């Protein structure tokens, strides 16, 4: 790649507004990620006190976590009808992004939980083996005894609460039992109470030692919960529970081994794929119905293509991270494809993959950015701006403020005639729309970055010409594509890029992108925005990403390991 250095010239006399805007767009999320080149290896995480902890509120389980917890606790009892009831839990955003997740126990949420909590015991009692497993054979009697209930409270109930029940909780449970209309209903009510309790619905971290301090040790159960929910959105399995019960999990070496074990479970791998979807803001509901027909020519599009694209992406991520123990560079540049779906394989330009071995993509296509979920656009045009924004904001952690209405309105300052628009490429139209200096404070970075991908159409197919259509999707004419740019990629230094292959290659080896990835990964695992005193721990993740002998897999283990610290601070 040719790299040229172009010193930014701030034209004297620019008004204060523009200077301010430019600075806003040039600074990074939490600052200190000012890398001068891809090879600039300066450590920009501020770590003054490794023991400094970030407080965070106790969080209720997301709907996804509750569903996983219920599945873990009662999988053999969940039939189609019960699953329909469980699916009434509202989509609270917890599965896609912590940023959209609200910690509120909404009425809608509790309504669903109420129905679920009463439906589950009914179903358990309909499956004798399940009833015996959860409540013991004593629950088969016409009249269930308190001893039987006590056995449940001492046994399976601790899996529901993810820790042994307190004396008070057992007393309340027994009161529920004795206050019910009959003993069978009483036992059912006890479980319903446990499932509606905030003890089940929230990941409480209150420690178990009677020490009055704002900073306190997590209990062994709380550490086990962190490991399991951070990695897999699921409750601890039997192995982890035993290590919590014995206290072994308090040993950092044991904890690290458990993290690696849980990371290799199916649930953890599924959550890892979710991280990538969150990280790159990938569209999981792709709609191809508005695409012009010649974009889809030769491709038989069906609803299955979206599933196939995400199935392929999932296999790709797991292959690079788990099978190959790949690096950050590998996830961005690997040529492996698992596109088995014939139409997806056509899009990716290879024969359908089969078996366990990936097929190799063509030389112009590589890594996660050249797959359909990232390249997709459901409209007449490629989503050049979105592609650019994601690379800048999510991959490089550039700060891109939401444009003000005044700036957005400037897009239409000089509307184009149809005859002019039809003669222009998407890139040229966007450059025209955003040429105002106020727009360019951000679009000077977004446009050239997104333009590098213009040789991929809305479906992610390679293309050499770009078609223009009228409002009815009727083809008018085609125009040349230009993917070459001088991209202001690093602080004070621009990079000449012929296409997205150059751009991705440059990013994949950069320290800045890996620092950004460390921040994103740490944030996602902790399900909250990073704070300044997280820097020490984020740096530990980062060190794994820049170490040539380590992989994303190692960084993941490190990220969960440093996040499962024994200490917690009360959050106010």
């Amino acid at each position, binding site marked *: 790649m040719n790299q040229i250095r172009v010193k930014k010239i701030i034209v004297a006399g620019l008004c204060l507004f523009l200077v301010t805007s430019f600075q806003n767009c040039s600074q990074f999320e939490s600052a200190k990620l000012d890398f001068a080149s891809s090879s600039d290896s300066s450590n920009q995480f501020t770590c003054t006190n490794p023991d400094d902890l970030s*407080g965070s*509120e*106790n969080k*209720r389980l997301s709907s996804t976590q509750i569903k996983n917890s219920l599945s873990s606790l009662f999988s053999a009892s969940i039939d189609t009808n019960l699953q329909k009831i469980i699916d*009434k839990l*509202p*989509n*609270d*955003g917890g599965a896609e992004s912590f*940023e*959209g*997740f*609200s*910690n*509120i*126990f*909404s*009425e*809608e*949420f*509790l*309504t669903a939980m109420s129905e679920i*909590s*009463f439906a589950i015991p009914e179903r358990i009692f309909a499956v004798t083996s399940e009833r015996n497993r959860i409540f013991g054979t004593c629950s088969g009697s016409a009249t269930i005894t308190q001893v039987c209930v006590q056995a449940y409270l001492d046994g399976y109930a601790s899996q529901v609460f993810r820790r042994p029940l307190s004396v*008070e*909780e057992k007393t*309340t*449970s027994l*009161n*529920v039992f004795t206050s019910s209309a009959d003993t069978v209903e009483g036992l059912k*009510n006890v479980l319903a*109470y446990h499932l*509606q*309790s*905030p*003890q089940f619905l*929230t990941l409480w971290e*209150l*420690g178990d030692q009677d020490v009055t301090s704002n900073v306190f040790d997590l209990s062994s159960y709380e550490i086990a919960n962190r490991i399991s929910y951070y990695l897999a959105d699921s409750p601890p399995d039997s192995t982890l529970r035993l290590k919590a019960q014995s206290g072994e999990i308090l040993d950092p070496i044991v904890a690290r081994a458990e993290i690696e074990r849980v990371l290799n479970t199916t649930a953890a791998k599924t959550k890892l794929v979710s991280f990538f979807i969150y990280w790159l*803001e990938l*569209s999981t*509901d792709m*709609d191809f119905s*508005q695409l012009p027909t010649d974009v889809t020519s030769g491709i038989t599009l069906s609803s299955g293509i979206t599933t196939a694209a995400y199935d392929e992406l999932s296999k790709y991520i797991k292959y690079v991270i788990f099978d190959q123990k790949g690096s950050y560079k590998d996830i961005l540049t690997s040529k492996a494809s698992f596109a088995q779906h014939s139409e997806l394989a056509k899009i990716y330009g290879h024969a359908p993959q089969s078996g366990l071995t990936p097929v190799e993509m063509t030389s112009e296509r590589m890594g996660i950015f050249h797959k359909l979920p990232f390249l997709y656009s459901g*409209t007449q045009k490629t989503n050049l701006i*979105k592609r650019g924004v994601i690379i800048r*904001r999510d991959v490089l952690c550039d700060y891109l*403020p*939401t*444009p*003000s*209405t*005044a700036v957005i*309105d400037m897009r*239409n300052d000089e509307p184009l005639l149809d005859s002019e628009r039809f003669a222009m490429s998407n890139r040229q139209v966007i450059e025209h729309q955003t040429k105002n200096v106020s727009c360019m404070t951000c679009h000077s970075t977004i446009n050239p970055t997104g333009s590098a991908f213009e040789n991929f159409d809305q479906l992610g197919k390679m293309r050499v010409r770009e078609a223009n259509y009228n*409002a009815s*999707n009727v083809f008018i004419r085609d125009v040349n594509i230009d993917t070459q740019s001088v991209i202001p990629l690093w602080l004070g230094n621009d990079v000449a890029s012929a296409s997205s292959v150059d751009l991705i290659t440059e990013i994949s080896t950069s320290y800045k992108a890996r620092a950004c990835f460390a921040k994103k990964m740490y944030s996602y695992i902790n399900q909250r*925005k990073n704070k300044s005193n997280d820097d020490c721990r984020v740096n530990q993740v980062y060190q794994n990403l820049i170490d040539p002998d380590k992989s994303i897999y190692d960084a993941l283990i490190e990220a969960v390991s440093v996040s499962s610290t024994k200490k917690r601070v009360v*959050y*106010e």
Partner: protein
Amino acid sequence: MSKNNKKQWYDQRFLGRRQFLMGIGGHMLMIPFLSSLAPRNVLAAPLPNRRLAMFPMEFGMMTNFLRPDNAIIKPSLIAHSPSIHYANLASLPKPISFVFDNTFDDLLNDLNIFYGLGGTGEAGHTYGIFNGSNANVPGDNTNRRPTFGRSLDVIIENSAQFKSSFSGKMSTIRPSTKQTYGVAMFWDRDASGNPIVKQPTMSDRTLFDNIFGLVDIAPTEKAKMDARKTLVADSVLEDINRLKNHKRISKSDKDMLDRYITSVNDLQKKLLDVKSCSKPSITYQYDAAGKKIASFSVDQLLDNFFEITTLAFACDQSRMLGLQNHFGSSAGAGLPHHFDGEDVVVDTNNSGITQKWYIHKIADFARKLKAFPDPSGQGSLLDHSLLMVMNEHSSRRAHSPVDLPTLTIGSLGGTVNSGKYIDFRQEARFINDSTPFGHPRKQLLISALQGMGVARSEYINDGDGNGFGMFSGAQAANHTDFASTHNDPLPFYTKP
């Protein structure tokens, strides 16, 4: 359903309207039975209940047709203050506009038409309209927490939907599953110009079942279930109280637990109220398998939504409605997303007809609420409700947030004035029709919130740090006069 030729369904059910309403009132006296355990500041709202229905429109609404012509209105304006003028709608020549036709003639005392409300937030996009509800603005990861007050049905809830809307769809209000009524209608027009539904996110049958799922349970079973739920809820509250007394519980943890209690209280209240609701004899437009019926009618579907909402309001199963009218495509026939909102030929022949149809449907809904006595015995449902019709365009093809057309219907329990054309342009700063600076529209949303019983303390720290709704960037720049008052209710409109 026509307002004149169809008998109201509540008269057709096996419970008479009188008996039906008495039942609700009787139960209301009994609730909430868990209130003694709830913190004082989260007890159920006082009677009568108030309701808010929001109708954001993603496509351009014809600004010119949503208010009286300037030539008509100007001689009628009465000065309230240097920056606020008004006219009584009843005194204006009819019809007020092409879109209104005569459909609001019997609702003029309930209607308000606003001029000079703007600056809603990010680009005037639909989600910008809801910046007042703390929606997450794309690109802004401040994790705003949307809430309309914890004692209400939370409707416009999840920021993730707003975020996904940025990548293509504009289904701003998240369709929900239970108790919550948030529906986005994606629709188009056929070759004859008739409205057709392309993708409603919820069928009328599903909506009813979600809201009134307990209606068909036998009374003995209901009683048994209620007893079980009460027992469990009481035990849950013991857990909550234990947690709240824990020395390592933080203020935010306590707040979360308080919200749990409030939701449980509201749920228990609903359990009692729903007993009095019976199934209406409406003709569902979707069958049990979720398919459209052979004689599917979008008119009937929308009527059904409004029938169900009316019942949900009356039975206090919901206090909020969000219905977004979304046009499915920018390029298809009918009404494009960025249509030329000031092209009279287009308006009257095409999009204007579509818009007129929808506005008339909303008027029918208001009429339905007005015909239904409030369960409190004080006036009609409409008297205690507020319908807000909003739009994200105000100028040609652009998401200009300047003077976004807004209508309200209802007086929200007498907390706001109605029957007015209200002009908020600040004449001292008035430049021309494309930049008529007026009050920030967030103040209208704040008026609605306060009318709904949400305390100022509940929204003042929300949003972008500037209180409920956005007040930064262009919003602040265009409304510098309101730097210290933008978190206040809208003057003149809001009653003291």
